[in-house]
């Protein structure tokens, strides 16, 4: 960009040079020397005048523009429009430019202030949310202590002596419900920790084959209640270094989900693992109802449940998969799903085989 000052100099310079040149030509050709002389003097005066007025005019334009530019630079640094140096000019365009800049600046300043207020409000809400869920889980856990305690005493027939079958069934139901409540409270707490990046990971050596076998052993009783086959399909026998309890938690959530989504007596759930150089990839595969493509995108979100009508029939709080995702990502891996409606669903998750610096914010 050529500054206006230079253009003005150029224009006046060129015009006075033309006049000067005409005078010079006139003088040299000596047609009428006195006329030429007059023209020459006139041209010199005009050139000098133009030069002076050019300097004056250009100053009167560039000064306020320079000031405006300065104001703009400072505004871009501070986002504050007030207390800017005033601009004195009688050039209408610059006035307008300045006015527009001022009003734009005021709007920006106001918007930023409003936004700051919103951010503060959001932070406050977030703090409240964390406090609230921590308070809730504490307050829910406390009354669970006597409930679970007494029910366990009843169940062991220590508190009220021997119970008949009906009584024992009722006690079992209370116990199962209390345990479910306890798990839910635990899930809320885990979700909250994941939100804050405060979930702890304890890494250790894990034998893949042993891990899978123990999972089969732990979950076969629950699966067989629904006549579901839970099988291992893997010959992997390597050792990885990761968090065993958390991996178990992920398997537990995935297998419990799968049990909920396969049909009684026809279901089969397969778990397995395969490794490559850096990662181990686990899977939990079922032949259940499947998950639609729309739902596949949503299921890892906190509190997401696959429509209310099915969730009524099924267990779950909508926290399980969000927790799985949080854990796996915390362990430096990823989780994903492949599913076809009425054919089945496979959840995959891969994690690094070697220790990683786990992400713990404190």
């Amino acid at each position, binding site marked *: 960009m050529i500054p206006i000052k230079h253009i003005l100099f150029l224009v006046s310079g060129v015009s006075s040079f033309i006049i000067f040149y005409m005078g010079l030509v006139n003088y040299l050709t000596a047609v009428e020397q006195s006329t030429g002389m007059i023209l020459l003097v006139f041209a010199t005066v005009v050139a000098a005048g133009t030069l002076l007025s050019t300097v004056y005019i250009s100053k009167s334009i560039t000064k306020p523009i320079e000031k405006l530019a300065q104001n703009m630079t400072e505004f871009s640094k501070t986002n504050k429009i007030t207390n800017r140096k005033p601009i004195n000019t009688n050039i209408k365009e610059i006035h307008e430019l300045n006015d527009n800049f001022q009003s734009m600046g005021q709007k920006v300043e106001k918007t930023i202030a409003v936004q700051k207020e919103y951010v503060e409000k959001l932070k406050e809400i977030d703090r409240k949310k964390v406090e609230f869920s*921590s308070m809730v*889980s*504490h307050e829910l*856990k*406390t*009354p*669970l*202590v*006597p*409930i*679970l*305690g*007494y029910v*366990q*005493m009843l169940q062991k027939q*220590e*508190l009220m002596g021997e119970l008949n079958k009906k009584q024992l069934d009722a006690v079992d139901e209370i116990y199962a419900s209390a345990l479910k409540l*306890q798990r839910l409270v635990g899930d809320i*707490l885990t979700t*909250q*920790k994941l939100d804050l990046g*405060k979930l*702890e990971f*304890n890494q250790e050596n894990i034998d893949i084959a042993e891990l899978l076998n123990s999972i089969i052993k732990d979950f076969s009783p629950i699966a067989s209640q629904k006549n579901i086959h839970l099988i291992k399909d893997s010959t992997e026998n390597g050792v990885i270094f990761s968090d065993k309890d958390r991996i178990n938690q992920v398997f537990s959530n995935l297998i419990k989900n799968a049990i909920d989504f396969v049909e009684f007596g026809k279901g089969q759930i397969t778990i397995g693992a395969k490794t490559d150089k850096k990662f181990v990839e686990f899977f939990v595969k079922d032949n259940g109802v499947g998950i639609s493509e729309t739902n596949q995108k949503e299921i890892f979100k906190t509190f997401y449940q696959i429509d209310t009508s099915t969730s009524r029939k099924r267990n779950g709080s909508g926290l399980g998969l969000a927790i799985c995702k949080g854990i796996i990502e915390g362990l430096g891996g990823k989780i994903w799903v492949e599913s076809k409606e009425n054919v089945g669903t496979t959840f995959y998750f891969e994690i690094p085989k070697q220790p990683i610096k786990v992400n713990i914010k404190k």
Partner: protein
Amino acid sequence: MSKNSTMRDSKINSNHLNILIIDDNEQITKMITTFLELKNHNCRVANDGKQGLALIQENKHDVVLLDLAMPEFDGYAVIKALENNDMLKNNKIIVFTASTITQDELEELVSRGVTSYILKPIDIDLLLSKIIESATS
């Protein structure tokens, strides 16, 4: 386990322990008392930290169950006071809590001299085995 313990410390009879329970929640202390008395143990209850600390200092208990989250004088304050009197390691203290304490924080308490910990909600069988284990350790 009880067999081992009688060999190590003849004074402690793990079938009949004196247990001090410190928790501000009366429903919890009542339930634990009921359970432990069913198992033939003796229980004393303190419903706040100050009272609990005074009872600990009587030195009459085989095991102390200490809740961490109590109003005013809490479990941490009790631990601190015992530490200052050099009494923490002489007592078998099991802390139990429902608060969102981390594993590291619990381990830190153990390294300072707390015998064991258990998280609420508690499994009463686990509680009993921890009590016996702590009493005889």
